[in-house]
């Protein structure tokens, strides 16, 4: 396992887990909500990075499966389907749409792929506004939730983030990881080595989309609503992606620190200078782009060490 090598790593992971599990018991529901928001962004960032770090393909449409999950779950709950059925239907919808878009965009290369995936977000946004019977149009869908939902979402999100982190590391070591990295290294050469780039690209996109989609389901489950903005707005579409692109080259964990800082900063701006929130976030992101290392604060720390050894060449 790449991200847990030493005894020190295991101690840190255990402490982190213990702290995470204790938080809901010792803090207010406000904190739980805040952490949920951060973990949703973290999951989106990791799922984007799963595709990007190894294949080099920028899926700017990662918020589409998020929205599909969020809307499908809200639709099902608002029609009084059971929670289990709602989850199953939402996951099937996520898999269906991610496979569909994967096959649709698989021919695109480089910047065209990024643009194509971004176009899918605009497409999804338009559908969300226009298919009122399905999505509630501009108002979106409201579902009833209890405080308990936030607490369950909290643990599921923490668990899924850990799973995706370990999965990312495991894939990198596997032959699937080698195939994906060869696609990034030189797609034509990869094909002459017998690697079916298209199939690998679609598979990894589906895996990444599944996690982003489940983040969407969970976001509906504790927020109690879904709108086009909450799914396809700047926050889900770009923040996790920006953090993964800026910080992903340092380590697998670095983007998570990035989204945490930006989400906390955003919370502080909203509560202190609400009119200037977007302005301040813009400045923060520009600074992050200029000085990515400083954003992780922990300069020269363990989080900056590229233990995966994967992306040092490209950064």
């Amino acid at each position, binding site marked *: 396992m790449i991200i847990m090598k030493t005894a020190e790593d295991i101690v840190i992971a255990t402490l982190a887990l213990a702290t995470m599990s204790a938080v809901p018991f010792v803090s207010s529901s406000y904190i739980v909500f805040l952490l949920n928001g951060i973990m949703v962004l973290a999951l989106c960032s990791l799922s984007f990075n799963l595709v990007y770090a190894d294949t080099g393909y920028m899926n700017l449409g990662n918020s589409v499966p998020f929205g599909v999950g969020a809307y499908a779950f809200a639709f099902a709950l608002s029609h009084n389907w059971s929670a289990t059925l709602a989850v199953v239907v939402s996951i099937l919808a996520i898999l269906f749409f991610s496979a569909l878009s994967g096959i649709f965009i698989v021919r695109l290369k480089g910047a065209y792929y990024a643009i194509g995936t971004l176009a899918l977000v605009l497409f999804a946004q338009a559908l969300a506004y226009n298919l009122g019977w399905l999505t509630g149009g501009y108002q979106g869908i409201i579902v009833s939730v209890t405080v308990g939902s936030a607490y369950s979402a909290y643990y599921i999100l923490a668990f899924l983030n850990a799973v995706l982190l370990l999965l990312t590391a495991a894939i990198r070591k596997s*032959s699937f990881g*080698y*195939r994906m*990295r*060869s696609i*990034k*290294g*030189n797609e*034509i*050469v*990869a*094909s*002459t*080595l*017998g*690697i*079916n*780039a298209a199939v690998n690209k679609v598979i990894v996109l589906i895996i990444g989309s599944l996690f982003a989609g489940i983040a969407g389901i969970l976001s509906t489950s504790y927020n109690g609503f879904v709108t086009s903005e909450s799914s396809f707005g700047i926050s889900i579409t770009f923040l996790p992606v920006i953090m993964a692109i800026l910080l992903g080259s340092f380590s697998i964990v670095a983007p998570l620190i990035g989204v945490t800082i930006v989400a906390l900063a955003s919370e502080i701006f909203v509560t202190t200078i609400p009119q200037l929130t977007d302005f301040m976030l813009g400045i923060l992101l520009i600074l992050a782009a200029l000085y990515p290392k400083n954003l992780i604060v922990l300069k020269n720390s363990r989080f900056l060490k590229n233990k995966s050894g*994967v*992306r*040092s*060449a*490209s950064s």
Partner: protein
Amino acid sequence: MQVLKIENLSHVFGPLKVLEDVYLDLEDNTITAIIGPNGSGKSTLFNLISGTLRPQGGNILFNGINIAGFKPYVIARRGVSRTFQDPQPLCGMTVLENVKTASLLTGTASKESLLRILVQCSLENEADTDAAGLSFAKLRFLELARVMAMKPKLLLVDEPFSGLNTSEIERMSNLLLRMRDEFGTSTLISGHLVGHLAKVAKEFVALHRGKVIAKGSFDEVRNNPAVIETYLGESNVEN
């Protein structure tokens, strides 16, 4: 038995006829050299056989099956490997990872067997360096190391000697002969250094402006009037 039989293969890039009605037979377990001045269509022929370029017409029979138009990964899985005239490393991956990726084709290769390939290619000290940072000569050998890990039935090596010194050419030649003897690989090798090519190749094919102008043994091709005329005054053929 013929491992490769090319019939009636033509290719145009816009108005430019790059290959015209090419016929070619490759014998099993044999190294065949394909020579011709720059621009005569050698690399295009390799691209068509390996599928990185889509044929516009003609047949490419590999072990009796027409692979013309198959996807490159399908052709590779059937046992056809190639190297590139301009070395193409898998960037962001180490030398060892480059070779390991190639070895996935044949299933499980032990780390020892991969390291043995690196030793044979004099790449053992670079095993853990990013392939993109290798010197030109090392990159040439990485191209070969990858195809060695694939144990191909048919190998296309595009100008493997270009840019190498004499001892490196000898090492490269020995590796090609070894692949023939160990895996039964049939090889099509392109180049200009006919003297060095003659040491490994049993058959010669001369290409000129997309047409095969001579076939046969080294001496037959060398003494062919059309070949002599083509090369008269050309400086890129050495002995």
